[in-house]
Protein backbone atom coordinates (compact mmCIF):
# COMPACT_ATOMS: atom_id res chain seq x y z
CA UNK A 1 0.00 0.00 0.00
CA UNK A 2 1.25 3.44 -0.79
CA UNK A 3 1.86 5.60 2.21
CA UNK A 4 3.84 8.78 2.43
CA UNK A 5 6.69 6.80 3.91
CA UNK A 6 7.36 4.60 0.91
CA UNK A 7 6.68 6.99 -1.91
CA UNK A 8 9.73 5.56 -3.63
CA UNK A 9 10.40 1.93 -2.87
CA UNK A 10 13.57 0.32 -4.12
CA UNK A 11 13.41 -3.34 -3.52
CA UNK A 12 16.28 -5.80 -3.75
CA UNK A 13 17.76 -3.96 -6.71
CA UNK A 14 20.49 -5.82 -8.57
CA UNK A 15 22.34 -4.88 -11.72
CA UNK A 16 24.86 -6.94 -13.64
CA UNK A 17 26.66 -5.91 -16.77
CA UNK A 18 27.87 -8.46 -19.26
CA UNK A 19 31.64 -8.45 -19.56
CA UNK A 20 34.02 -10.71 -21.47
CA UNK A 21 34.72 -12.49 -18.18
CA UNK A 22 31.05 -13.14 -17.47
CA UNK A 23 28.46 -10.89 -15.84
CA UNK A 24 29.80 -8.31 -13.39
CA UNK A 25 27.35 -7.58 -10.60
CA UNK A 26 27.79 -3.91 -9.81
CA UNK A 27 24.88 -3.47 -7.44
CA UNK A 28 23.32 -6.29 -5.44
CA UNK A 29 20.36 -6.23 -3.13
CA UNK A 30 20.07 -2.46 -2.93
CA UNK A 31 17.19 -1.66 -0.64
CA UNK A 32 15.79 1.78 0.14
CA UNK A 33 12.56 3.58 0.86
CA UNK A 34 12.19 7.29 0.37
CA UNK A 35 9.35 9.29 1.86
CA UNK A 36 7.29 11.77 -0.03
CA UNK A 37 9.01 15.13 0.05
CA UNK A 38 12.23 13.71 1.37
CA UNK A 39 15.65 14.64 0.06
CA UNK A 40 18.02 11.70 0.08
CA UNK A 41 21.66 11.74 -0.93
CA UNK A 42 23.55 8.74 -2.19
CA UNK A 43 27.19 8.87 -1.34
CA UNK A 44 29.95 6.39 -1.92
CA UNK A 45 33.33 5.89 -3.47
CA UNK A 46 33.78 6.57 -7.12
CA UNK A 47 32.74 3.62 -9.28
CA UNK A 48 30.71 1.91 -6.57
CA UNK A 49 27.50 2.05 -8.58
CA UNK A 50 25.74 5.27 -7.58
CA UNK A 51 25.01 6.33 -11.13
CA UNK A 52 23.93 2.79 -11.92
CA UNK A 53 21.29 2.95 -9.18
CA UNK A 54 20.15 6.40 -10.22
CA UNK A 55 19.82 5.56 -13.88
CA UNK A 56 17.67 2.57 -12.96
CA UNK A 57 15.38 4.86 -10.96
CA UNK A 58 15.34 7.20 -13.94
CA UNK A 59 14.36 4.25 -16.10
CA UNK A 60 17.33 4.75 -18.40
CA UNK A 61 18.58 1.27 -17.61
CA UNK A 62 16.77 -1.87 -16.67
CA UNK A 63 17.37 -3.64 -13.32
CA UNK A 64 18.69 -7.17 -13.63
CA UNK A 65 16.44 -8.13 -10.76
CA UNK A 66 14.45 -6.39 -8.07
CA UNK A 67 12.09 -3.53 -8.61
CA UNK A 68 11.45 0.14 -8.15
CA UNK A 69 8.03 1.44 -7.24
CA UNK A 70 7.28 5.14 -7.44
CA UNK A 71 3.97 6.46 -6.10
CA UNK A 72 2.47 2.99 -6.14
CA UNK A 73 3.55 2.11 -9.66
CA UNK A 74 6.44 0.03 -10.83
CA UNK A 75 8.87 2.00 -12.94
CA UNK A 76 8.91 0.90 -16.54
CA UNK A 77 11.22 2.97 -18.68
CA UNK A 78 12.10 6.64 -18.50
CA UNK A 79 9.48 9.36 -18.34
CA UNK A 80 8.93 12.99 -17.47
CA UNK A 81 7.39 12.09 -14.10
CA UNK A 82 11.00 11.97 -12.93
CA UNK A 83 13.00 15.12 -13.48
CA UNK A 84 16.63 14.25 -14.08
CA UNK A 85 19.53 16.63 -13.61
CA UNK A 86 22.58 15.10 -15.24
CA UNK A 87 26.17 15.75 -14.33
CA UNK A 88 26.75 17.48 -17.63
CA UNK A 89 23.70 19.70 -18.05
CA UNK A 90 22.85 17.92 -21.33
CA UNK A 91 21.17 20.93 -22.88
CA UNK A 92 20.49 20.71 -26.58
CA UNK A 93 23.00 23.22 -27.96
CA UNK A 94 20.85 24.28 -30.92
CA UNK A 95 18.10 25.54 -28.62
CA UNK A 96 17.95 28.53 -26.32
CA UNK A 97 17.57 28.08 -22.57
CA UNK A 98 13.89 28.84 -23.04
CA UNK A 99 13.40 26.21 -25.74
CA UNK A 100 15.31 23.62 -23.78
CA UNK A 101 12.97 23.99 -20.84
CA UNK A 102 9.94 24.37 -23.12
CA UNK A 103 10.66 21.01 -24.74
CA UNK A 104 9.96 19.33 -21.41
CA UNK A 105 6.99 21.50 -20.48
CA UNK A 106 5.33 20.67 -23.79
CA UNK A 107 5.66 16.99 -22.91
CA UNK A 108 3.97 17.23 -19.52
CA UNK A 109 1.42 19.89 -20.41
CA UNK A 110 0.58 19.19 -24.03
CA UNK A 111 -2.87 20.73 -23.72
CA UNK A 112 -1.79 24.04 -22.23
CA UNK A 113 -1.71 27.02 -24.56
CA UNK A 114 1.57 28.19 -25.94
CA UNK A 115 1.42 31.24 -23.68
CA UNK A 116 0.78 29.17 -20.57
CA UNK A 117 3.67 26.89 -21.42
CA UNK A 118 5.87 29.92 -21.97
CA UNK A 119 4.88 31.34 -18.59
CA UNK A 120 5.86 28.12 -16.85
CA UNK A 121 9.23 28.13 -18.59
CA UNK A 122 9.88 31.75 -17.65
CA UNK A 123 8.82 31.14 -14.07
CA UNK A 124 11.34 28.38 -13.55
CA UNK A 125 14.15 30.11 -15.39
CA UNK A 126 13.59 33.16 -13.19
CA UNK A 127 13.52 30.94 -10.14
CA UNK A 128 17.03 29.70 -10.86
CA UNK A 129 18.21 33.26 -11.51
CA UNK A 130 18.34 33.24 -15.28
CA UNK A 131 15.82 36.00 -15.97
CA UNK A 132 18.37 37.80 -18.15
CA UNK A 133 19.56 34.80 -20.10
CA UNK A 134 16.28 33.23 -21.13
CA UNK A 135 16.92 33.45 -24.85
CA UNK A 136 20.59 32.57 -24.84
CA UNK A 137 21.98 29.39 -26.26
CA UNK A 138 24.03 27.02 -24.09
CA UNK A 139 27.24 28.11 -25.83
CA UNK A 140 26.69 31.65 -24.54
CA UNK A 141 26.17 30.48 -20.96
CA UNK A 142 28.77 29.62 -18.33
CA UNK A 143 28.91 26.11 -16.89
CA UNK A 144 27.05 27.23 -13.80
CA UNK A 145 24.33 28.94 -15.81
CA UNK A 146 23.89 25.85 -17.95
CA UNK A 147 23.37 23.71 -14.91
CA UNK A 148 20.82 26.25 -13.69
CA UNK A 149 18.92 25.63 -16.90
CA UNK A 150 19.23 21.90 -16.22
CA UNK A 151 17.68 22.43 -12.79
CA UNK A 152 14.93 24.62 -14.21
CA UNK A 153 14.17 21.99 -16.83
CA UNK A 154 13.79 19.28 -14.20
CA UNK A 155 11.60 21.36 -11.89
CA UNK A 156 9.47 22.72 -14.74
CA UNK A 157 8.22 19.21 -15.39
CA UNK A 158 6.55 19.26 -11.96
CA UNK A 159 7.71 15.68 -11.65
CA UNK A 160 6.85 13.20 -8.94
CA UNK A 161 10.48 13.19 -8.00
CA UNK A 162 13.84 14.63 -8.81
CA UNK A 163 16.97 12.65 -9.66
CA UNK A 164 20.32 14.36 -9.60
CA UNK A 165 23.59 12.67 -10.56
CA UNK A 166 26.49 14.70 -9.20
CA UNK A 167 24.77 17.78 -10.53
CA UNK A 168 27.58 20.12 -9.51
CA UNK A 169 30.46 17.75 -10.02
CA UNK A 170 31.79 19.57 -13.04
CA UNK A 171 31.65 23.06 -11.61
CA UNK A 172 34.34 25.02 -9.81
CA UNK A 173 34.09 25.26 -6.04
CA UNK A 174 32.55 28.73 -5.87
CA UNK A 175 29.93 28.07 -8.52
CA UNK A 176 29.15 24.81 -6.80
CA UNK A 177 28.36 26.59 -3.51
CA UNK A 178 26.22 29.07 -5.40
CA UNK A 179 24.25 26.37 -7.14
CA UNK A 180 23.77 24.39 -3.96
CA UNK A 181 22.03 27.47 -2.61
CA UNK A 182 19.90 27.70 -5.75
CA UNK A 183 18.91 24.06 -5.49
CA UNK A 184 18.20 24.38 -1.78
CA UNK A 185 16.03 27.41 -2.42
CA UNK A 186 14.04 25.96 -5.32
CA UNK A 187 13.69 22.61 -3.61
CA UNK A 188 12.40 24.13 -0.38
CA UNK A 189 9.68 25.90 -2.36
CA UNK A 190 8.48 22.64 -3.86
CA UNK A 191 9.40 20.02 -1.26
CA UNK A 192 9.91 17.54 -4.01
CA UNK A 193 11.02 14.00 -3.33
CA UNK A 194 14.62 13.85 -4.46
CA UNK A 195 17.51 11.44 -4.73
CA UNK A 196 20.88 13.01 -5.37
CA UNK A 197 24.17 11.27 -6.05
CA UNK A 198 27.19 13.13 -4.78
CA UNK A 199 30.65 12.51 -3.45
CA UNK A 200 30.78 15.83 -1.64
CA UNK A 201 30.09 15.27 2.05
CA UNK A 202 29.24 18.90 2.78
CA UNK A 203 26.87 19.05 -0.14
CA UNK A 204 25.11 15.93 1.09
CA UNK A 205 24.72 17.29 4.62
CA UNK A 206 23.53 20.71 3.51
CA UNK A 207 20.80 19.42 1.21
CA UNK A 208 19.62 16.08 2.55
CA UNK A 209 17.25 14.72 5.11
CA UNK A 210 19.10 11.45 4.99
CA UNK A 211 22.41 10.40 3.57
CA UNK A 212 22.63 6.87 2.22
CA UNK A 213 26.15 5.53 2.16
CA UNK A 214 26.89 2.78 -0.32
CA UNK A 215 29.45 0.08 0.24
CA UNK A 216 32.22 -0.32 -2.28
CA UNK A 217 31.50 -2.30 -5.39
CA UNK A 218 31.28 -4.82 -6.82
CA UNK A 219 27.97 -5.97 -5.42
CA UNK A 220 27.50 -2.60 -3.77
CA UNK A 221 24.54 -2.08 -1.49
CA UNK A 222 23.32 0.27 1.18
CA UNK A 223 25.95 0.40 3.90
CA UNK A 224 24.71 2.85 6.48
CA UNK A 225 22.13 5.57 6.54
CA UNK A 226 22.66 8.78 8.46
CA UNK A 227 19.88 11.19 9.15
CA UNK A 228 20.55 14.88 8.97
CA UNK A 229 18.41 16.34 11.72
CA UNK A 230 18.79 20.04 10.94
CA UNK A 231 15.71 22.19 10.65
CA UNK A 232 14.87 23.86 7.38
CA UNK A 233 15.27 26.38 5.95
CA UNK A 234 18.96 25.73 6.30
CA UNK A 235 21.75 28.19 6.20
CA UNK A 236 25.18 26.99 5.35
CA UNK A 237 27.05 29.42 7.57
CA UNK A 238 24.95 28.74 10.64
CA UNK A 239 24.95 25.04 9.99
CA UNK A 240 28.70 24.81 9.80
CA UNK A 241 29.12 26.48 13.16
CA UNK A 242 27.16 23.81 15.04
CA UNK A 243 28.82 20.80 16.58
CA UNK A 244 25.99 18.61 15.33
CA UNK A 245 27.14 19.40 11.82
CA UNK A 246 30.61 18.24 12.68
CA UNK A 247 29.17 15.03 14.14
CA UNK A 248 27.21 14.18 11.01
CA UNK A 249 30.11 15.04 8.81
CA UNK A 250 32.50 12.90 10.84
CA UNK A 251 30.11 10.00 10.69
CA UNK A 252 29.97 10.16 6.91
CA UNK A 253 33.70 10.54 6.55
CA UNK A 254 34.49 7.72 8.93
CA UNK A 255 32.19 5.41 6.99
CA UNK A 256 33.81 6.32 3.71
CA UNK A 257 37.29 5.96 5.15
CA UNK A 258 36.88 2.94 7.39
CA UNK A 259 33.75 0.93 6.78
CA UNK A 260 32.75 1.31 3.14
CA UNK A 261 34.47 -1.95 2.22
CA UNK A 262 32.62 -3.99 4.86
CA UNK A 263 29.50 -5.70 3.63
CA UNK A 264 26.66 -5.52 6.13
CA UNK A 265 25.12 -8.95 6.64
CA UNK A 266 21.68 -7.58 7.34
CA UNK A 267 20.22 -4.29 6.20
CA UNK A 268 20.67 -1.62 8.83
CA UNK A 269 17.52 -1.00 10.80
CA UNK A 270 18.93 0.62 13.92
CA UNK A 271 17.82 3.99 15.12
CA UNK A 272 20.48 5.86 13.18
CA UNK A 273 19.20 4.40 10.00
CA UNK A 274 15.78 5.77 10.62
CA UNK A 275 15.27 8.70 8.37
CA UNK A 276 14.70 12.25 9.33
CA UNK A 277 11.17 12.78 8.19
CA UNK A 278 10.53 15.75 6.06
CA UNK A 279 7.32 17.62 6.70
CA UNK A 280 6.12 15.28 9.39
CA UNK A 281 6.23 12.06 7.46
CA UNK A 282 7.87 8.93 8.77
CA UNK A 283 10.03 6.59 6.81
CA UNK A 284 11.23 3.13 7.49
CA UNK A 285 13.87 1.13 5.76
Amino acid at each position, binding site marked *: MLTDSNYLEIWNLTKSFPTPKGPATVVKGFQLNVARGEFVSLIGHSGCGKSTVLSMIA*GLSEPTSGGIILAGREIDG*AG*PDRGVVFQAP*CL*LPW*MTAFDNVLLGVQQVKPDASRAEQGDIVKHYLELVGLADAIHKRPAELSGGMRQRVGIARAFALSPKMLLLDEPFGMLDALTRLELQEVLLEVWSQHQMTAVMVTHDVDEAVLLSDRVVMMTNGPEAQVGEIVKVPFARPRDRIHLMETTAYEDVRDELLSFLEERAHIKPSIPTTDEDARPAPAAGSTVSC
Partner: protein
Amino acid sequence: MKRFPFDWLALPLVGLIAVGLLWVISCSTWAPNLPSPVKTWEMSRPYIVEPFAKRGELDQGVLRFTWYSLILVSKGYFIAILIGTPLGFLLGSSKTLTMMFDPIIQFLKPVSPLAWLPLGLVLFGKSEPAALFTIALCSMWPTVVNTAVGVRAVPQDYLNVARVLKLSKFKTLTKVLFPATLPYMFTGFRLSLGIAWLVIVACEMLIGTPGVGGFLWQEYNSLIYEHIILCILTIGCVGFILDRLMGIVERRFAAA
Protein backbone atom coordinates in the same frame (compact mmCIF):
# COMPACT_ATOMS: atom_id res chain seq x y z
CA MET B 1 53.82 47.92 -40.24
CA LYS B 2 51.49 45.56 -42.00
CA ARG B 3 52.98 42.18 -42.71
CA PHE B 4 53.23 41.24 -46.36
CA PRO B 5 50.61 38.55 -47.04
CA PHE B 6 53.29 36.06 -47.90
CA ASP B 7 51.50 32.83 -47.03
CA TRP B 8 48.16 33.11 -48.69
CA LEU B 9 48.92 35.46 -51.57
CA ALA B 10 52.55 35.23 -52.58
CA LEU B 11 52.99 31.47 -52.36
CA PRO B 12 49.95 30.56 -54.47
CA LEU B 13 51.11 33.16 -57.02
CA VAL B 14 54.51 31.54 -57.23
CA GLY B 15 52.81 28.20 -57.83
CA LEU B 16 50.63 29.71 -60.52
CA ILE B 17 53.61 31.23 -62.32
CA ALA B 18 55.47 27.92 -62.17
CA VAL B 19 52.58 26.03 -63.75
CA GLY B 20 52.18 28.77 -66.37
CA LEU B 21 55.86 28.46 -67.24
CA LEU B 22 55.52 24.71 -67.55
CA TRP B 23 52.62 25.28 -69.90
CA VAL B 24 54.55 27.69 -72.09
CA ILE B 25 57.61 25.45 -72.21
CA SER B 26 55.52 22.36 -72.92
CA CYS B 27 53.65 23.79 -75.87
CA SER B 28 56.84 25.03 -77.48
CA THR B 29 58.78 21.78 -76.97
CA TRP B 30 57.28 18.31 -76.60
CA ALA B 31 53.57 19.12 -77.04
CA PRO B 32 53.15 21.00 -80.31
CA ASN B 33 49.38 20.39 -80.28
CA LEU B 34 48.96 22.06 -76.91
CA PRO B 35 47.75 25.62 -77.49
CA SER B 36 49.86 28.31 -75.86
CA PRO B 37 48.32 30.57 -73.20
CA VAL B 38 48.18 33.48 -75.60
CA LYS B 39 46.49 31.42 -78.30
CA THR B 40 44.05 30.04 -75.79
CA TRP B 41 43.11 33.52 -74.67
CA GLU B 42 42.64 34.78 -78.24
CA MET B 43 40.39 31.90 -79.20
CA SER B 44 38.42 31.98 -75.97
CA ARG B 45 37.88 35.71 -75.95
CA PRO B 46 34.45 35.77 -77.63
CA TYR B 47 33.20 33.14 -75.19
CA ILE B 48 34.43 35.04 -72.17
CA VAL B 49 33.69 38.66 -73.05
CA GLU B 50 30.18 37.71 -74.13
CA PRO B 51 29.56 34.98 -71.57
CA PHE B 52 25.82 34.74 -72.20
CA ALA B 53 25.80 34.90 -75.98
CA LYS B 54 23.90 32.26 -77.90
CA ARG B 55 25.10 31.85 -81.45
CA GLY B 56 23.95 28.28 -81.90
CA GLU B 57 23.13 25.13 -79.99
CA LEU B 58 26.77 24.29 -79.31
CA ASP B 59 28.23 27.76 -79.74
CA GLN B 60 27.32 29.76 -76.66
CA GLY B 61 29.04 31.94 -74.05
CA VAL B 62 30.92 30.14 -71.38
CA LEU B 63 28.65 31.20 -68.53
CA ARG B 64 25.60 30.15 -70.49
CA PHE B 65 27.08 26.68 -70.87
CA THR B 66 27.96 26.70 -67.18
CA TRP B 67 24.38 27.61 -66.40
CA TYR B 68 23.04 24.62 -68.35
CA SER B 69 25.46 22.34 -66.59
CA LEU B 70 24.57 23.76 -63.20
CA ILE B 71 20.88 23.19 -63.80
CA LEU B 72 21.44 19.58 -64.73
CA VAL B 73 23.81 19.07 -61.85
CA SER B 74 21.45 20.58 -59.31
CA LYS B 75 18.61 18.33 -60.45
CA GLY B 76 20.72 15.22 -60.04
CA TYR B 77 22.21 16.51 -56.83
CA PHE B 78 18.82 17.16 -55.24
CA ILE B 79 17.69 13.66 -56.13
CA ALA B 80 20.88 12.40 -54.46
CA ILE B 81 20.22 14.42 -51.29
CA LEU B 82 16.54 13.55 -51.22
CA ILE B 83 17.32 9.86 -51.33
CA GLY B 84 20.68 9.89 -49.59
CA THR B 85 19.72 11.75 -46.41
CA PRO B 86 16.86 9.47 -45.30
CA LEU B 87 18.93 6.48 -46.35
CA GLY B 88 21.75 7.72 -44.15
CA PHE B 89 19.34 8.17 -41.23
CA LEU B 90 18.06 4.64 -41.65
CA LEU B 91 21.53 3.16 -41.87
CA GLY B 92 22.74 5.23 -38.94
CA SER B 93 19.92 4.25 -36.63
CA SER B 94 19.77 0.53 -37.38
CA LYS B 95 22.64 -1.87 -36.92
CA THR B 96 20.75 -4.53 -38.88
CA LEU B 97 20.31 -2.27 -41.91
CA THR B 98 23.95 -1.23 -41.73
CA MET B 99 25.09 -4.84 -41.76
CA MET B 100 22.72 -5.56 -44.64
CA PHE B 101 23.64 -2.69 -46.90
CA ASP B 102 27.11 -1.49 -45.95
CA PRO B 103 28.91 -4.06 -48.12
CA ILE B 104 26.75 -3.13 -51.12
CA ILE B 105 27.47 0.57 -50.61
CA GLN B 106 31.20 -0.06 -50.33
CA PHE B 107 30.89 -2.08 -53.49
CA LEU B 108 28.91 0.50 -55.49
CA LYS B 109 30.85 3.57 -54.34
CA PRO B 110 33.89 3.13 -56.60
CA VAL B 111 31.88 2.43 -59.76
CA SER B 112 32.64 5.15 -62.29
CA PRO B 113 29.95 7.39 -63.81
CA LEU B 114 31.07 6.15 -67.20
CA ALA B 115 29.82 2.74 -66.15
CA TRP B 116 26.46 3.92 -64.83
CA LEU B 117 25.47 6.09 -67.77
CA PRO B 118 24.94 3.30 -70.29
CA LEU B 119 22.84 1.47 -67.73
CA GLY B 120 20.81 4.66 -67.24
CA LEU B 121 20.28 4.89 -70.97
CA VAL B 122 19.11 1.29 -71.01
CA LEU B 123 16.75 1.93 -68.11
CA PHE B 124 15.31 5.30 -69.15
CA GLY B 125 15.86 5.47 -72.87
CA LYS B 126 16.42 9.24 -72.91
CA SER B 127 19.64 11.05 -72.20
CA GLU B 128 18.53 13.52 -69.53
CA PRO B 129 17.00 10.95 -67.13
CA ALA B 130 20.04 8.76 -67.72
CA ALA B 131 22.31 11.66 -66.80
CA LEU B 132 20.29 12.42 -63.66
CA PHE B 133 20.37 8.75 -62.72
CA THR B 134 24.13 8.73 -63.05
CA ILE B 135 24.71 11.97 -61.16
CA ALA B 136 22.39 10.93 -58.34
CA LEU B 137 23.83 7.46 -58.03
CA CYS B 138 27.43 8.61 -58.02
CA SER B 139 27.08 11.62 -55.76
CA MET B 140 24.75 10.06 -53.20
CA TRP B 141 27.30 8.07 -51.20
CA PRO B 142 29.07 10.81 -49.25
CA THR B 143 25.67 12.05 -48.06
CA VAL B 144 24.57 8.55 -47.08
CA VAL B 145 27.79 7.69 -45.30
CA ASN B 146 28.24 11.01 -43.49
CA THR B 147 24.63 11.17 -42.36
CA ALA B 148 24.87 7.64 -41.02
CA VAL B 149 28.10 8.46 -39.19
CA GLY B 150 26.47 11.59 -37.78
CA VAL B 151 23.46 9.69 -36.50
CA ARG B 152 25.71 7.15 -34.83
CA ALA B 153 27.72 9.97 -33.27
CA VAL B 154 24.77 11.68 -31.59
CA PRO B 155 25.87 11.91 -27.94
CA GLN B 156 24.11 9.49 -25.61
CA ASP B 157 23.39 12.49 -23.38
CA TYR B 158 21.04 13.99 -25.95
CA LEU B 159 19.29 10.68 -26.45
CA ASN B 160 18.89 10.36 -22.69
CA VAL B 161 17.21 13.76 -22.63
CA ALA B 162 14.81 12.53 -25.30
CA ARG B 163 14.11 9.38 -23.29
CA VAL B 164 13.65 11.16 -19.98
CA LEU B 165 11.22 13.62 -21.58
CA LYS B 166 9.57 10.73 -23.43
CA LEU B 167 9.70 12.56 -26.74
CA SER B 168 7.77 10.88 -29.52
CA LYS B 169 9.71 9.25 -32.36
CA PHE B 170 8.92 12.21 -34.56
CA LYS B 171 9.99 14.80 -31.98
CA THR B 172 13.15 12.87 -31.19
CA LEU B 173 13.96 12.97 -34.88
CA THR B 174 13.18 16.65 -35.48
CA LYS B 175 14.35 18.12 -32.16
CA VAL B 176 17.32 15.91 -31.33
CA LEU B 177 18.62 13.58 -34.05
CA PHE B 178 18.24 15.93 -36.98
CA PRO B 179 19.91 19.00 -35.46
CA ALA B 180 22.66 16.89 -33.92
CA THR B 181 23.40 15.27 -37.27
CA LEU B 182 23.21 18.47 -39.32
CA PRO B 183 26.96 19.26 -39.33
CA TYR B 184 27.75 15.76 -40.58
CA MET B 185 25.00 16.00 -43.17
CA PHE B 186 26.44 19.19 -44.56
CA THR B 187 29.87 17.66 -44.85
CA GLY B 188 28.18 14.95 -46.87
CA PHE B 189 26.31 17.52 -48.96
CA ARG B 190 29.53 19.35 -49.77
CA LEU B 191 31.35 16.20 -50.84
CA SER B 192 28.32 15.05 -52.82
CA LEU B 193 28.17 18.33 -54.69
CA GLY B 194 31.83 17.96 -55.63
CA ILE B 195 31.18 14.53 -57.07
CA ALA B 196 28.00 15.66 -58.84
CA TRP B 197 29.99 18.34 -60.60
CA LEU B 198 32.69 15.86 -61.47
CA VAL B 199 30.14 13.50 -62.95
CA ILE B 200 28.21 16.07 -64.96
CA VAL B 201 31.10 16.70 -67.26
CA ALA B 202 31.55 13.03 -68.01
CA CYS B 203 27.80 12.68 -68.58
CA GLU B 204 27.59 15.61 -70.96
CA MET B 205 30.58 14.37 -72.89
CA LEU B 206 28.82 11.08 -73.49
CA ILE B 207 25.31 12.32 -74.24
CA GLY B 208 26.31 15.55 -75.98
CA THR B 209 23.85 17.93 -74.31
CA PRO B 210 24.80 21.61 -74.32
CA GLY B 211 26.90 22.47 -71.29
CA VAL B 212 30.55 22.85 -70.39
CA GLY B 213 31.23 19.15 -70.81
CA GLY B 214 29.32 18.83 -74.04
CA PHE B 215 31.10 21.88 -75.42
CA LEU B 216 34.46 20.45 -74.45
CA TRP B 217 33.82 17.19 -76.26
CA GLN B 218 32.44 18.92 -79.33
CA GLU B 219 35.44 21.24 -79.61
CA TYR B 220 37.74 18.26 -79.26
CA ASN B 221 35.99 16.68 -82.22
CA SER B 222 36.24 19.98 -84.14
CA LEU B 223 39.96 20.16 -83.32
CA ILE B 224 39.64 23.49 -81.49
CA TYR B 225 41.92 22.54 -78.64
CA GLU B 226 42.01 26.03 -77.13
CA HIS B 227 38.44 25.55 -76.04
CA ILE B 228 39.27 22.33 -74.24
CA ILE B 229 41.52 24.36 -72.01
CA LEU B 230 38.87 27.05 -71.63
CA CYS B 231 36.42 24.37 -70.50
CA ILE B 232 38.86 22.78 -68.10
CA LEU B 233 39.54 26.15 -66.48
CA THR B 234 35.82 26.89 -66.26
CA ILE B 235 35.04 23.51 -64.72
CA GLY B 236 37.79 23.99 -62.16
CA CYS B 237 36.62 27.49 -61.28
CA VAL B 238 33.02 26.46 -60.84
CA GLY B 239 33.94 23.41 -58.79
CA PHE B 240 36.15 25.54 -56.58
CA ILE B 241 33.44 28.14 -56.04
CA LEU B 242 30.80 25.51 -55.30
CA ASP B 243 33.06 23.85 -52.75
CA ARG B 244 33.81 27.16 -51.06
CA LEU B 245 30.14 28.12 -50.90
CA MET B 246 29.20 24.77 -49.40
CA GLY B 247 32.13 25.10 -47.03
CA ILE B 248 30.70 28.37 -45.73
CA VAL B 249 27.29 26.79 -45.22
CA GLU B 250 28.86 23.76 -43.58
CA ARG B 251 30.84 25.87 -41.12
CA ARG B 252 27.72 27.78 -40.16
CA PHE B 253 26.00 24.58 -39.19
CA ALA B 254 29.04 23.16 -37.46
CA ALA B 255 29.20 26.28 -35.29
CA ALA B 256 25.52 26.24 -34.38
